[in-house]
């Protein structure tokens, strides 16, 4: 008998996946050559599952800013934002984020996970109502637990269902906070945000949008779905992350809410953790500037997303409802998904294996995310591998390739 015996239900499925080939929970890169190329087990792979939407992990100005910061400020802050962990960079990044979103206030968290944990648990508490999209990220569910609020789920991306559940609450005391995501991380589908804002306005309450996967991706200025849908004034709180479009790590909350500064002393995931190292803050600030100034990144990202999505769809793969930087290919079962994932890896394509319970509707998915840094040739190389393997696995009808 060991302490971890309660988790033994995961042993057989995990061992079964490991028996097929590489372990998707323990992929170890020998080298990262660029935002789109890595080396795995001595072999080059195209990186197609790293959420590196704008390809800024190797942005020269961001690297220089980061290197300068580590030399000037040291390797870490060694303290909480509440104590000694606020340097000029932290304050500058918060000011830049508030300005970018056109909001009065911003606060920076040490990870994106903590941004949801710390924002949501600070905004609602016992006696309040938290209304979540059913497909919300784990960080939102964990925030719900930490908050102590009454949690109600509504059907994924369904404004009517949200309306119905708010109506049921009637005039029960307590505030209402609705939480949705801009782009959902597994399938890449986008929330019907305008409709959600309409429901919120009719029924009352606050709306928080997690733009983790949509910041820098959607909207003319890259502010995310709220901007793209033209409803920024109907969104009360925006949470986001630095670990996707901005190529580092960390998260944030922006809002116009009064007494925002009190969050800094009541939000436990903000207060009881060390703040981000100066080097991370510096590269993030630099990447945000690039995101704001270089709209061509979004144009290239969008073209790459279309190229991959349309290519896979036209081959006959089952993909999400619309093109998005996240494209999830649905596999008929988990064994096929694991087999395909390994075969893709052996053929030089790294993407994410997404299996239940992390996926909606217990689907087994091959989840890809494209980058502005991918070349059309890289996308085509990936499509070729998908076509060959799809036929080998019997997922696509065998057909004679047209000759040019």
């Amino acid at each position, binding site marked *: 008998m060991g302490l971890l015996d309660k988790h033994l239900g995961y042993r057989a499925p995990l061992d079964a996946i490991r028996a097929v080939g590489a372990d998707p929970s323990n992929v170890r890169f020998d080298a990262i050559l660029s935002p789109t190329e890595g080396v795995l087990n001595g072999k080059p792979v195209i990186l197609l599952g790293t959420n590196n939407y704008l390809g800024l992990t190797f942005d020269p100005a961001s690297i220089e800013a980061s290197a300068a910061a580590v030399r000037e400020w040291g390797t870490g802050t060694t303290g909480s934002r509440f104590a000694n962990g606020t340097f000029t960079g932290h304050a500058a990044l918060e000011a830049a984020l508030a300005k970018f979103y056109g909001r009065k206030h911003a606060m920076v968290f040490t990870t994106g996970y903590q941004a949801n944990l710390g924002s949501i648990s600070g905004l609602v508490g016992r006696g309040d109502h938290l209304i979540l999209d059913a497909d919300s990220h784990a960080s939102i569910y964990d925030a719900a637990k930490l908050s102590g609020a*009454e*949690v*109600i*789920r509504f059907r994924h991306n369904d404004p009517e269902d949200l309306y*119905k*559940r708010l109506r*049921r*609450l009637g005039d029960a005391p307590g505030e209402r906070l609705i939480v949705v995501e801009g782009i959902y991380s597994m399938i890449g589908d986008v929330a019907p945000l305008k409709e959600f804002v309409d429901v919120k306005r009719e029924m009352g309450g606050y709306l928080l949008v997690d733009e983790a996967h949509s910041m820098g991706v959607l909207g003319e200025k890259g502010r995310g779905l709220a901007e793209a849908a033209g409803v920024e004034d109907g969104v009360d709180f925006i949470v986001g992350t630095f670990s996707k479009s901005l190529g580092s790590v960390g998260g944030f909350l922006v809002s116009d809410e009064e007494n925002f500064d009190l969050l800094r002393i009541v939000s436990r995931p903000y207060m009881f953790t060390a703040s981000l190292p100066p080097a991370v803050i510096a590269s993030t600030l630099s990447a945000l500037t690039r995101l704001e100034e270089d709209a061509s990144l979004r144009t290239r990202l969008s073209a790459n997303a279309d190229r991959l999505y349309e290519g896979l769809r036209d081959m006959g793969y089952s993909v999400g409802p619309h093109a998005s930087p996240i494209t999830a290919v649905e596999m008929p079962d988990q064994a096929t998904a694991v087999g395909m994932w390994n075969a893709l890896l052996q053929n030089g394509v790294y993407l994410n294996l997404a299996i239940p319970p992390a996926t909606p509707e217990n689907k087994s998915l091959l989840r890809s995310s494209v980058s502005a840094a991918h070349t059309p040739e890289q996308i085509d190389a990936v499509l070729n591998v998908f076509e060959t393997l799809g036929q080998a696995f019997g997922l696509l009808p065998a057909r004679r390739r047209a000759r040019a």
Partner: protein
Amino acid sequence: MAEVATDLTVREVAKAAETVLGRPVQVTPATDIARDLAVDSLALMNIVMELEDRFDLSIPLDRLATVQTVGDLSDLINTLRVKA
């Protein structure tokens, strides 16, 4: 009277579980939801969402902490219905 209400609620729990799980289930109030029905936490949340619609009732997820059996879930629903 209370027993009749419980029986009806248990039957609705079974129907909701069948809708979510896509397979027939046999339940009594003593049925352990996780162990006997092989329902994980996500499936349980989906069953609860289904039950909210069947009873036109809010069932906050934090109230599920004490729910282990179908009888527990049925009692919770009946308690919430009285309050509603």
